[in-house]
């Protein structure tokens, strides 16, 4: 069937600002939005630019705004979004070209929260032990693929780019609630900052946007609670 796509295009070498372009693509209801973008790029307009790699929702390359909501283009099917389909780049990060945004500020925020295991104690020759219950405490936040769907859906992030954003907080959570980690105080100190977890206004956009089903807002609330308990 014919699907009508409206894509927000921007070419930094010729455009002063973004403009909409319309395409008609023949597609099956079971096809991914990414498949449709490929049909345009491969057989109609090779200049249409977007990131993609795994094409099944695990690499985090192709977050974009589809009919107003943040999604991975490879994880949503035509029959789920209807017809016509409107596609824009994710918001709050500078647009570089078409659906490609500058990811550097996003990864800078991620790096700020010390996203690695901190434990000065000699671990010994075998694995550190961890009970299944302790392991479960941070299971949800280990799933993050750094696609930026959560951060760029956040109304606070849109207006305050210094806010570390949901994804960075999720990655801090992944270590703060890991029984093997000893960096909680340092990370909470960072997240206590004016641009840390307390900037969250619990809009829940991040939770709806997460393609991995992470309870992002809950993770942020966990961090706020932990900060108050630690003080």
């Amino acid at each position, binding site marked *: 069937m014919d699907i009508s796509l409206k894509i927000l295009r921007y070419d930094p070498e010729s455009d002063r600002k973004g403009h909409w372009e319309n395409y008609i693509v023949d597609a099956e209801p079971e096809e991914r939005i990414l498949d449709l973008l490929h049909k345009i*790029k491969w057989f109609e307009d090779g200049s249409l630019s977007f990131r993609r790699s795994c094409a099944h929702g695990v690499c985090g390359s192709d977050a974009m705004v589809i009919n107003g909501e943040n999604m991975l283009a490879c994880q949503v099917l035509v029959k789920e979004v209807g017809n016509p389909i409107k596609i824009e780049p994710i918001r709050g990060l500078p647009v570089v070209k078409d659906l490609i945004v500058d990811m550097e500020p996003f990864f800078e925020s991620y790096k700020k929260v010390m996203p690695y295991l901190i434990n000065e104690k000699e671990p010994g020759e075998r694995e550190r032990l961890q009970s299944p219950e302790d392991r479960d405490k941070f299971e949800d936040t280990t799933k993050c693929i750094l696609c930026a769907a959560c951060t760029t859906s956040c109304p606070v992030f849109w207006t305050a780019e210094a806010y570390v954003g949901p994804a960075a907080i999720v990655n801090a959570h992944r270590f703060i609630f890991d029984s093997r980690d000893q960096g909680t105080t340092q990370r909470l100190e960072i997240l206590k900052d004016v641009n840390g977890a307390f900037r969250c206004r619990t809009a829940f956009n991040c939770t709806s946007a997460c393609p991995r089903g992470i309870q992002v807002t809950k993770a942020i609330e966990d961090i706020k609670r932990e900060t108050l308990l630690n003080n």
Partner: protein
Amino acid sequence: MKVIKHSFDGVIVGAGGAGLRAAIEAAPHMKLAVITKLYPTRSHTGAAQGGMSAALANVEEDNWNWHAFDTVKGSDYLADQPAVDILCKEAIDAVIELEHWGLPFSRLENGKIAQRRFGGHTVKEGESPAFRACYSADRTGHMILQTLYQKCVSMGVTFFDEFQVLDIKIEDGICQGVIAYELATGDIHIFETRAVTFATGGFGKIFKVSSNAHSLTGDGPGILYQKGLPLEDMEFYQFHPTGIYRLGILLSEAARGEGGILRNKDGERFMERYAPSIKDLAPRDMVSRAIATEISAGNGAGPDSDYVYLDLTHLGAETIKKKLPDITDFVRTYVKIEPIDEPIPVQPTAHYAMGGIPTDINSRVVSDEKGTVLPGVYAAGEAACVSVHGANRLGTNSLLDIVVFGKRAGQSMVDYVTQTKPNSISESASDDLSKKINSLVEKEHTEEFSVAKIRKDLQESMEENAKIFRTRETLEKQTEILEELRERYENVTIFDKSKVHNSELVEAIELDYLLDMSEATVASALARNESRGAHSRQDFPDRDDENFMKHSFAFKKDNTANLKYRDVELGKYEPMERKY
């Protein structure tokens, strides 16, 4: 086109598991750069699901020698046994090291790392399936990739994200550096360096139905192959038995490790007929052949009788939710069925290259079948061929391979850099590449010579003629098709003329590598008149140890390959008939 020059002691190309592990080893000892055409966390290591084997013996008695036996038998005796010993022995420390760096493994009640069963892994050399695969639900690769990247962030490793390496400069047999194209600007970057590791992953995109990411186009092997260096064992390509029907998205062998069963259209558990002792947990080559055989015998399901079922319905909602959450999500997302209640339509999907850039056990690239080391050039992971997987890789051994031989690549870089002095690369080193890019961009676009059309014809024809079952006839036919495709590629054109994120230009260059990989694969397959592991010739159905206990080395020659051979390095396991 701007040309920017950098100077490093070492450069790693690719930031998946092998590249990152090499970086962790090398970074403290040299000025190091890691160059990736993606962002590191987008690498395909993150798509690996089921586990990473090591004889930790956390669940039951185990021994790395049994792991080695299984790996050698699984390889259909083509793996080099000294290399397999290293893989299986060092596996134990490799897993512990990842745990120490924070990898969130699933845990047993006693707090130790959990282990599960996987295809071809047994206790006591075939007695029964072994609990050997260390895992984190069904997203083990994601956790490995994240953990290694986190470690690199903590160490302050220098990354060049979204830079595509397109050339290596070797003068008088000595590495001078690599040339990269910056995706965001279209600028050319010369990286002067004396040690380079290629960890660019596989090339599953030579086939139509594949579990591989779009980015897996054989860049590292392609760059070296075009320089006249050989590719080893290219005829051995693994098809994973359980890809989602038509899409090829991987459904982990862990599904069968946890008790999942393959059934044909009549509901019969057909693996009982093909591998009576370990049934659905037979190695991948055997299971994929069994599925293809069932389908050609008319036992496939669906309107076109072209798939079988992966049945998880008897496992119970709790096991599925806890141990297989991601793959069941994939089924819900892409097939719109509930795996707790319904069996899943699956078909074999192109998955893993056993072959690649030949290396020794220290991940040093060798330039011929005699094992001559090429100074300063290293390779690890799926891009490389050590060979630890021989003619068929066992599930979980790839995640092991990337960390064990990624580490060795890093160590070899350190050894080389500390023993040599910096050399200098010429300012004109990037001239050839600039010319190539300019001529691609300047050529007027025509539909006929579009990248996508040539690639589509390549993938469809490889799927048809060089997949699970091959014959001289299909391979000769494919050789002709590849010649035509190569001719068309000589005239390839692109529509996008821009400098910023010109991904069509990148796809055009990647297609060159895909053609190279296909040519080497088909030429190697045509010359191997036997069936061994994943290489199955219907006109030569038996294994021929007398003539083919050897690795193939394909050297690029026009649009095909010249083949040479090297004997397999044997060890304590004598080749025997492979039954399960």
